[in-house]
């Protein structure tokens, strides 16, 4: 490095001002680029984003015809939304012609999103697509929380109804034919068995008593006594007379013993006759028991009118309650109930604490003031002529002080549903949140509704015209719902295998021009108390009751006849035998009297002999005379 470097001459430095003019152009270009993006590309990208997110969420293709946003106007327009039905890809689950949101600039400048005017036009359900929509491959099934909540309600309702109660009852009536049952139990009648036992008992007793009575009524002994008394009486010899008196005393003892035996036997016989005499009453009681037990065998149910209405309509009402539960849970997810005073949790240090000052002339964070809903029915879809509005959807209902209200009115000609009025209210303005639903349908075509669909019985409505009102209110986890329906011009379907059921049901339904159904349910979701009444239930239950009563009477008559047939003969035999027992008693009584008479006679003779009776004074007298002769 020997050569000294020559420094080139410096360019004179131009004094620059405080503004960075050279940055203006790049910034302008960036701004112009941003403007161009939002003007020409943003809407396209937003449309693609909505389609992609919608498709992933729905599980089937979601199409959007166009999206138009305007930053300056604060507007958002979505046109031609089609949501493919993933079960029927040729149809849309939902389609909307246009959704328009108009944000307020005044609110946007306050970091708030207030939609002053919105509209949702031409809502269609199940409309046909131009070409089938793409369906995403199904994901592995996961237990749905909403399904679980609905199941909880339906499980409670299921306890209240039987799928085929009507069929079961008729089958029961069919099966309760007394003839069959009587044949089965013919050998099992308690009364018949007992009567046989009674007869055997009486026969045994009769044999015993025949012998006994014969023995006790034997008069040979009495004749012997008579002869002995006469012999003692005719004896002249004093000594022999004394010996005869002694013999008479012995005889008296025998007679007394015999009389005592006869008396005892008489009492025993009387006791046995008393027992045996109760046999007829016992037989009657057993006959009654047998009839009662046979009735039980028929298992004829006690029909409750309330149960019948519940069995017929609980499933339908339960479906409404389950839907209410589902939508309430969804509403709770998106519109969480706000507490009166927000709990202030200490935030993380780096996040700080955000203070909320009173809103005096501002807006809540989000407020959809009013969205108009309209739709015109088109052929081939389930869309209807609907008009209505959704008002006051907000994040600060306590500040807005107005409940969220969805008010819809319309007709659905494709579904033959007219005069639909629905008002859904969600009120979070007070300390306690309240949600309500008022639904009224003036006329609708009742689809085929089967109350019983068994092999033996097909019973239901082929078609009818109905009107219904449904009101529901939910407050603090307790729901109250009432349902009133009127079904007129019913076209019944009655197909029963048995003539009995055919006649019975045809007869009943002919007298029901209008079906009224009134249901109500109240209580917490986990313990609902449901009640349903219906004139159809009343009529069916009353008809069934009459039929059951007739069956019971018929069964009773047949049972009585059966019992009579089986019991009558043996019972008569028993009664005849019992009469025979009465004869034994009179024979015993006669023998007793006879012995008593002989006893008295012997006693009198002994007394006579002791007083010197007999032929020549008493023994004492004769004895004294004899002593005189020996000069004592």
């Amino acid at each position, binding site marked *: *490095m020997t050569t000294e*470097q020559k*420094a*080139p001459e*410096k*360019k004179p430095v131009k004094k*620059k*001002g*405080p*503004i*960075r003019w050279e*940055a*203006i152009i790049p*910034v302008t270009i960036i701004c112009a680029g941003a403007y161009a993006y939002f003007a020409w590309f943003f809407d396209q990208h937003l449309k693609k984003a909505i389609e992609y997110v919608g498709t992933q969420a729905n599980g089937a293709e979601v199409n959007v015809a166009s999206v138009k946003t305007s930053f300056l106007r604060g507007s958002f327009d979505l046109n031609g939304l089609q949501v493919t039905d993933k079960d029927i890809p040729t149809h849309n689950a939902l389609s909307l012609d246009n959704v328009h949101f108009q944000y307020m600039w*005044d609110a946007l*400048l*306050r*970091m708030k999103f207030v939609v002053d005017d919105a509209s949702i036009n031409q809502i269609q359900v199940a409309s046909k697509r131009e070409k089938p929509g793409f369906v995403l491959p199904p994901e592995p099934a996961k237990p749905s929380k909403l399904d679980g909540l609905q199941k909880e309600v339906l499980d409670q309702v299921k306890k209240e109804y039987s799928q085929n109660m009507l069929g079961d009852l008729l089958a029961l009536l069919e099966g309760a034919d007394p003839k069959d049952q009587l044949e089965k139990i013919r050998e099992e009648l308690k009364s018949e068995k007992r009567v046989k036992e009674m007869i055997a008992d009486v026969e045994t007793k009769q044999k015993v008593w025949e012998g006994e009575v014969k023995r006790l009524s034997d008069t040979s002994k009495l004749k012997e006594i008579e002869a002995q008394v006469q012999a003692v009486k005719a004896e002249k010899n004093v000594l022999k007379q004394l010996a005869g008196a002694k013999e008479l005393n012995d005889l008296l003892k025998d007679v007394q013993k015999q009389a005592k035996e006869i008396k005892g036997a008489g009492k025993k016989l009387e006791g046995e006759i008393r027992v045996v005499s109760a046999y007829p009453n016992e037989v009657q009681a057993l006959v009654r028991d047998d009839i009662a037990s046979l009735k039980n065998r028929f298992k004829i149910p006690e029909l409750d009118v309330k149960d019948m209405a519940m069995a017929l309509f609980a499933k339908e009402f339960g479906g409404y309650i389950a839907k209410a539960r589902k939508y309430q849970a969804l509403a709770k997810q998106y519109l969480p109930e706000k507490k009166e005073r927000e709990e202030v949790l200490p935030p993380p*240090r*780096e*996040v*700080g*604490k*955000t*203070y*909320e*000052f*009173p*809103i*005096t*002339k*501002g807006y809540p964070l989000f407020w959809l003031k009013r969205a108009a809903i309209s739709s015109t029915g088109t052929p081939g879809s389930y869309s209807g002529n609907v008009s209505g509005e959704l008002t006051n959807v907000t994040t600060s209902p306590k500040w807005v002080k107005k409940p969220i209200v969805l008010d819809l009115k319309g007709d659905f000609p494709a579904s033959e549903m007219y005069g639909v009025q629905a008002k859904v209210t969600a009120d979070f303005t007070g300390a306690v949140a309240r949600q309500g639903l008022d639904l009224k349908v003036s006329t609708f075509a009742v689809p085929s509704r089967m109350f019983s669909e068994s092999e033996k019985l097909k019973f239901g409505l082929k078609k009818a015209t109905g009107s219904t009102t449904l009101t529901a209110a939910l407050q603090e986890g307790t729901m109250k719902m009432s349902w009133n329906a009127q079904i007129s011009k019913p076209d019944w379907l009655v197909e029963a295998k048995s003539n009995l059921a055919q006649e019975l049901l045809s007869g009943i339904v002919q007298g029901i021009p209008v079906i009224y159904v009134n249901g109500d349910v109240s209580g917490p979701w986990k313990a609902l108390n449901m009640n349903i009444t219906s004139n159809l239930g009343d009529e069916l239950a009353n008809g069934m009751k009459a039929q059951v009563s007739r069956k019971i009477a018929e069964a009773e008559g047949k049972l009585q006849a059966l019992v009579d047939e089986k019991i009558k003969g043996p019972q008569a035999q028993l009664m005849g035998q019992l009469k025979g027992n009465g004869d034994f008693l009179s024979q015993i009584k006669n023998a007793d009297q006879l012995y008593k008479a002989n006893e008295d006679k012997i006693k009198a003779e002994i007394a006579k002999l002791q007083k010197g009776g007999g032929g020549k004074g008493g023994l004492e007298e004769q004895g004294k005379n004899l002593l005189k002769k020996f000069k004592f």
Partner: protein
Amino acid sequence: MTLLLKQLFGFFKLLHSETGNNQLAWGVALGFILGMTPALSLQSLLVFFCLFFFRVQIGAAFLAAFFFKFIAFLLDPAFDLVGQWALELPSLQGLFTDLYNMPIVPFTRFNNSIVMGSGIVAIILLPFVLAGSKWAIIKYRVTVVERFRETKLFKAWTKTSLYAWYYKYDTYFGN
């Protein structure tokens, strides 16, 4: 990235030149505000606007923002306390309520305690940071740069062909 690197090189170059004290000082001061502000807010955008439209040294601003961000993170509890004190002042409740309900102002997130606290601290300290950074730059140039220029090593370096080439390049193409 190129722009940022260019700005950073520019910062060091300017630091070693004889001019641009104010540009550098304002860059550090605005970087201080950026660093103190916890998140993107309206005032941050305002600072960015100033950085781009006024001839302020952007590299200095970013470097300062990066440096002060760490300090601010440590000072967050203090900012939180200052912010709470200010936002709970009864005499200012009316003003804050009005501001809260005004258009555009809520974008500043003034109702957040840390934003408010760091904002107050940044505004109070801004003149001191500006003055302090200007003084420090001048001092740096007088003491460090001049002394370095007098060293044999630097003198030897200025005699190299590489330096000559760089010098020529900077004369024609540098700003």
